[in-house]
């Protein structure tokens, strides 16, 4: 094993490989920080550039983009409440609240540190626990995926603050929007109104940009207070104090563990991982009321959760050849182009290459942490820009980003409608997070429930004999009943539920 580890390390320590890694991290940071551009898009667009270089060099660049884009997605989420990637939705909940308190620097610093901690933790998992995790994920059938989606949906209650019913209704609306397009099982068109543009359904990236970007701009215009506002005139310090580090350790590594496990499950990426990590940290925290209002623990958990999904996804991809998320699906294609077949045989025949990947991920994590901390102050200066300029920039880049995804005008109108809806929902104190969660999880929930029923020949009760599904269903029930249980036991915290209205 030691010779393979050393061989993997020496392959990575080549200056050209490191140069490709740095370039990849920088490009990933650009892709992640521009709303509408995702890590998947970055890896897909830049994969052809790697055709003319060695596998290590090409993979260094692509992994750099992957590792750079996810933490960078937290930057606009923190500064202007517009998640740069879907994985950063939960980051905006506490990150933007900190910015409004004048602690943008600290939020960016925690984003960099917790992201690196999450990535590094998940890489340790990759190095030591790759086979057990992948084997566990392999036991997932349609019924278990349905249970996972159901658990994700049930977390709506947790992320809706004191407006639990409104949050669940928003989640249902998200599920309803996910119905648009072809029925996943029979390809029967639903709610397409005869328009071919709707056959593929509604993309959640334009909806996300509209809800969180345009909607936020309209709210700020209506209240005529600025994104930089009085409260955010100071950027503040970047690095947390010793006591703050100590308070965040549990949530950071708890979030990293959750994110890794979720990332290891095929098709469940950082977007789900960060929400679950945030919610688990909230349940475990002594200061639940602070969550959604600028909690350092909440921010650390969401940042580490979404980044830890990288290691989890890579574990499943490398050991089983199954993509853990959309980016790793594109990465599999890139590896195949370079003549590398991910799967169990890769561990048997080319262990040094696996360790090269592990070291590349470690270097990328350290690099993105350094870039995140060094660039936090210059990035936070965006808050000193006059508010109308910032609004113009958000609207323009949101619009172009929504269009760039599919080159489809219908996405622009989806963004516009979501923006107006986001404005009205905020005014009506309807939480927006559950809506996006419903839109993301809807197709996964429906298709897997129906597949499971086909496999069980329409017998609902036989699904309940599956232990993993039972665990998910129990957790779902607990998540939904938790507010009632807490009220029944007279918890003082019940009167201080976190709110994510804004």
């Amino acid at each position, binding site marked *: 094993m030691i010779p393979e580890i050393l061989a993997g390390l020496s392959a990575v320590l080549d200056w050209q490989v490191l140069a490709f890694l740095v370039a990849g991290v920088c490009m990933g940071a650009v892709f992640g920080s*521009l709303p509408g*551009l995702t890590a998947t898009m970055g890896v897909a*667009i830049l994969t052809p550039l790697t055709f003319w270089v060695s596998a290590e060099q090409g993979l260094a660049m692509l992994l750099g983009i992957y590792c750079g884009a996810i933490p960078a997605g937290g930057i606009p989420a923190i500064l202007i409440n517009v998640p740069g990637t879907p994985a950063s939705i939960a980051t905006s909940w506490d990150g933007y609240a900190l910015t409004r308190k004048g602690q943008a620097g600290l939020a960016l610093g925690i984003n960099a540190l917790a992201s690196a901690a999450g990535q590094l933790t998940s890489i340790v998992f990759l190095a030591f626990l790759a086979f057990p995790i992948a084997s566990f994920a392999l036991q997932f059938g349609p019924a278990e995926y349905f249970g996972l989606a159901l658990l994700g949906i049930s977390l709506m209650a947790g992320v809706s603050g004191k407006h639990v*019913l*409104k949050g*669940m*209704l928003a989640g*249902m*609306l998200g*599920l*309803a929007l996910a*119905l648009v397009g072809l*029925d996943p*099982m*029979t390809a*029967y068109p*639903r*709610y397409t109104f005869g328009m071919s543009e709707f056959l593929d359904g509604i993309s959640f990236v334009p909806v996300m940009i509209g809800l969180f970007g*345009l909607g936020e*701009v*309209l709210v700020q*215009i*209506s*209240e*005529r207070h600025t994104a930089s506002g009085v409260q955010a005139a100071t950027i503040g310090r970047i690095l947390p104090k010793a006591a703050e580090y100590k308070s965040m350790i549990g949530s950071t590594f708890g979030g990293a563990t959750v994110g890794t496990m979720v990332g290891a499950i095929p098709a469940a990426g950082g977007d789900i991982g960060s929400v679950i990590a945030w919610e688990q940290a909230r349940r475990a925290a002594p200061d639940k009321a602070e969550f959604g209002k600028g909690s350092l623990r909440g921010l650390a958990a969401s940042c580490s959760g979404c980044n830890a999904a990288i290691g989890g996804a890579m574990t499943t991809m490398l050991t089983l050849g199954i993509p853990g998320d959309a980016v790793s699906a594109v990465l599999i294609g890139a590896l195949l182009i370079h003549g590398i077949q991910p799967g169990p045989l890769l561990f048997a025949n080319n262990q040094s290459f696996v360790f090269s990947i592990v070291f590349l991920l470690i270097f990328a994590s350290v690099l993105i942490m350094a870039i995140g901390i060094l660039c936090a102050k210059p990035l936070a200066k965006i808050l000193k820009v*006059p508010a*109308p*300029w910032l*609004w*113009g*920039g958000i*609207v*323009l*880049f949101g*619009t*172009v*980003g929504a*269009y*760039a995804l599919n*080159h489809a*005008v219908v996405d*622009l*109108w989806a963004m*516009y409608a979501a*923006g*107006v809806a986001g*404005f009205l929902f905020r*005014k*009506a*104190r*309807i939480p927006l997070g559950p809506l996006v969660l419903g839109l993301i999880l809807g197709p996964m929930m*429906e298709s897997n*429930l*129906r597949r499971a*029923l*086909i496999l069980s*020949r*329409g*017998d609902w009760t036989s699904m309940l004999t599956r232990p993993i599904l039972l665990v998910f269903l129990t957790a779902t029930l607990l998540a939904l009943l938790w507010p009632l249980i807490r009220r029944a036991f007279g918890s003082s915290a019940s009167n201080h539920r976190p709110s994510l209205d804004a």
Partner: protein
Amino acid sequence: MNSTDWISGGLFLAIGIGLIASGSAFPAGVGGLPGAGFFPQAIGAVMAMLACALVVTRRKKDASDSIQMGNARQVAGAAGLLFVYLLLWGQGLFILRTAVFLILTLRFLGQRWWPATACSAALTAFAYLAFDTALNVSLD
């Protein structure tokens, strides 16, 4: 009962009923297996129940929970300008129509001519260079 709960509850109830009604028009499924209409109806039913629960459980008058629209005229103006900009998407040069849209929007939001023009030019140029030139996203 406060206004946000009335409006939200009514709106979601209407959507829920609409989903149930429209879902019944889709294939119901065969042999005990749900068809394309199952999920819309299930979501519609849950949504209608939750909407009723929202309306029923919020009986106390709470002035702080009423809808505050704020500066509605400026919101309508900004949203209207963006609507026109999207209507004109694909017409003429991206740089020209975007710069005009941004100048008008910034002027509408109270910026002076010179800063509005400079900011619009810079944002438009950056967006064009980043997306059209660097990423090959055709914006014209």
